[in-house]
């Protein structure tokens, strides 16, 4: 059995396996490119052309800067631009400050499961639902105004002040922060698993530093590289958000993204040029914003180093951090109240202004939606379930496949995967839709599912790859040395050990899909209504009951999935101490 023939067979088999693996790998890259990368590039191209005057549908195809000139001279353009920049930057900076502060305050103080349950609730609630709920609280006729009235004033009419939809975009900023803090908390808490926080805290305290100062000078510098990408995603998202900006953002002028959307749906076909120019401009804004953020990082680092070198032990940072953490808690409390107010509104019947509680109750809104609009709910749930499962499958295939390409190519591929989270949705979805129309496809559940997976797949990759990589490789080596094949190792060791992160990333994918607005609207051509498109469409109207029902339905299903994702590993691994909630 030890003859040279057998050895050469071994060698050939090894080479064949390698070849097969490489060709399967190329196939996977080809599929990913065809399904994810090409559509984005083509869609972007189809948006770029009209902005420079090339619009064959209207019989114009002359290279010109007319659209850009029109855009810049459009009344309100300047304030729309500065509004976009202000809301985008302010919300991202504040959201990250609040996140760091709250992390510093709860680290090692609050039980892990409590944090998780709380986080899951907020993570599961889609953007539009948060915006609608917060609008109910802060509107002149909202809950807070009613509370004030019942105690102090004699308002019989809602006060004539502007709270939500304010011209400065303050309410948009607050709403964005309320939604982004939970996401950043999730990312930061995961990053904290990578460093021995408690030891660093002990060392720092022993050197005479307070909690906040240890965080700023020791902990944050270590975890920042791990959460940087997520901050960029939040920044890009905040600069191009649409659904929230429609619901709570200013309207005269609105942010650039809303302006662009309005032009896209303007009956005058020449508005299309303006719309595409505004969409391309948003892409440039995001590129510029990332560069500016980079410069800000440099400045903060320099200032931080100077501060660290001084060796000064101060209390001010502790007070400041406590203040910020308190603000964050107030904000999260408002989000919770917002959810409660949605529940109350959905079952309220008569609820005239100064009253703090409804006069009469009714389930009519629920029965109406559940009886005659069940198809909308069905669409949303089916799309979210299919999208998250398919994306999870591809994510596992992608992470599991042996990597043959060089590290630099790997970074490019990763960049391509997360590209949809950086380009404004509006800058390629309409172009993509034009391609769809010209190639004869029509809106269907399948095309909407695919459009959703452009966004769900990168989120799943982002949330899963960290856990995937940090699984101790020696487990895999041990299993291989025990004679287990790759497939057996995947099925019996990796997937079971990663059950929790797998379920959580699937839940994140589900809630992302459930909350997507523009992809459903544009690729679905309005013929595939989802709870999110309905909620946003109704948000500008007056029927708070129906708005609440749709907003709650948006939040309800992701919440169920999230709690299942947290609960299932606890049940399956009830007898396995090591796997009970090792990491979020």
């Amino acid at each position: 059995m030890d003859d040279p023939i057998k050895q050469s067979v071994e060698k050939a088999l090894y080479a064949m396996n390698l070849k097969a693996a490489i060709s399967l790998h190329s196939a996977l890259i080809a599929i990913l490119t065809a399904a994810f990368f090409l559509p984005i590039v083509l869609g972007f191209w189809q948006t770029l052309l009209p902005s420079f005057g090339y619009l064959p549908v209207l019989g114009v195809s002359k290279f010109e800067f007319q659209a850009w000139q029109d855009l810049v001279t459009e009344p309100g353009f300047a304030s729309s631009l500065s509004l976009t920049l202000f809301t985008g930057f302010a919300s991202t900076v504040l959201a990250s400050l609040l996140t760091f502060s709250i992390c510093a305050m709860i680290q090692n103080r609050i039980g892990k499961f409590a944090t998780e349950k709380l986080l899951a609730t907020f993570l599961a609630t889609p953007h539009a639902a948060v915006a609608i709920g917060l609008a109910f609280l802060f509107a002149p006729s909202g809950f807070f105004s009613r509370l004030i009235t019942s105690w102090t004033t004699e308002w019989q009419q809602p006060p004539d002040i502007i709270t939500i939809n304010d011209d400065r975009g303050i309410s948009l900023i607050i709403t964005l922060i309320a939604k982004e803090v939970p996401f950043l908390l999730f990312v930061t808490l995961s990053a904290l698993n990578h460093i021995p926080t408690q030891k660093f805290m002990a060392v720092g305290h022993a050197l005479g530093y307070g909690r906040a100062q240890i965080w700023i000078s020791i902990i944050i510098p270590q975890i920042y590289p791990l959460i940087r990408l997520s901050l960029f995603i939040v920044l890009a998202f905040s600069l191009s958000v649409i659904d929230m900006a429609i619901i709570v953002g200013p309207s005269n002028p609105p942010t650039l993204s809303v302006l662009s959307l309005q032009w896209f749906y303007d009956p005058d076909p020449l508005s299309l040029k303006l719309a595409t120019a505004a969409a391309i401009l948003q892409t440039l804004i995001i590129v510029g914003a990332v560069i500016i953020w980079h410069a800000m990082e440099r400045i903060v680092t320099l200032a931080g180093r100077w501060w660290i070198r001084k060796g000064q032990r101060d209390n001010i940072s502790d007070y400041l951090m406590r203040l910020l953490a308190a603000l964050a808690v107030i904000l999260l409390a408002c989000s919770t109240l917002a959810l409660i107010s949605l529940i109350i509104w959905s079952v309220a019947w008569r609820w005239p202004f100064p009253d703090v509680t409804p006069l009469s109750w009714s389930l009519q809104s629920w029965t109406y939606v559940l009886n005659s609009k069940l198809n909308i709910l069905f669409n949303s749930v089916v799309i979210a379930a299919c999208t998250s499962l398919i994306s999870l499958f591809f994510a596992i295939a992608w992470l599991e496949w042996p990597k043959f390409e060089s590290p630099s190519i790997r970074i490019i591929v990763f960049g391509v995967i997360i590209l949809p989270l950086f380009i404004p949705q509006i800058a390629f979805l309409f172009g993509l839709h034009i391609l769809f129309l010209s190639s004869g496809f029509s809106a269907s559940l399948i095309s909407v599912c695919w459009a959703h997976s452009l966004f769900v797949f990168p989120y799943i990759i982002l949330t899963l790859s960290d856990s995937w990589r940090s699984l101790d490789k020696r487990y895999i080596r041990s299993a291989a040395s025990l004679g287990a094949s790759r497939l057996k190792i995947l099925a019996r060791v990796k997937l079971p050990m990663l059950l929790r992160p797998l379920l959580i990333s699937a839940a994140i994918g589900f809630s992302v899909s459930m909350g997507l607005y523009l992809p459903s609207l544009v690729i679905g051509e309005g013929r595939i209504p989802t709870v999110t498109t309905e909620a946003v469409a109704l948000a500008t109207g007056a029927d708070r009951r129906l708005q609440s029902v749709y907003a709650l339905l948006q939040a309800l299903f992701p919440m169920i999935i999230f709690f299942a994702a947290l609960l299932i590993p606890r049940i399956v691994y009830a007898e396995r101490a090591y796997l009970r909630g090792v990491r979020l």
Partner: protein
Amino acid sequence: MKKLELSHVTIRLRNSAHPLIDDLSLVALSGEVTLIMGPSGIGKSTLLDFIGGHLDPAFLARGSVKIGELDITYMEPERRRVGIMFQDDLLFPHLSVGENLLFGLRSDLNKATDRQALIEDALSRADLAGFANRDPASLSGGQRARVTLLRTLLAKPHALLLDEPFAKLDKHLRTDVRSFVFEHAIAEKLPILMVTHDETDAAAAGGKVFILHETSR
């Protein structure tokens, strides 16, 4: 059983001309513990990775590994029949103690239908009777080390690699676990290659010692 033989093994980082391990040849005889010693970072664990088939793609290796006359240099790790024990026990945390052993127990080599009985038998030989349904996390360090060895041996390896397996155990436990591991592995007449820092390991092993030095630049 057969010997484990390395011939002219050279390992270097892909982007470096300087070899980590330069033209190393050695023979580990069956039923003997052969030691590899040397300062940290000298490439001891990398060498074991190479033998087990787990070498990181960042490294390039030349030379061959044989068990008896069979050249395993290019084999898939799972087909090499090379058992390995690390510093940490690496019992799969999602499986019970018994399931961990069943995962190791080869179905093609143990035709017995009663796999469970084999497991119970192995456990009782290790003074762990009745532990099959326990969560690995509930075991003491010494117990976990013993289960890990059982799991490795149930896969019927042709050679055993030990990567500082006792380093994390306290002095008293170390002696116990070490004699348990050596006793059982030697009884199976396996060639055993052990990487260690600990002089007492060397004294207890009593086999040949190879000392890796900084390769000259």
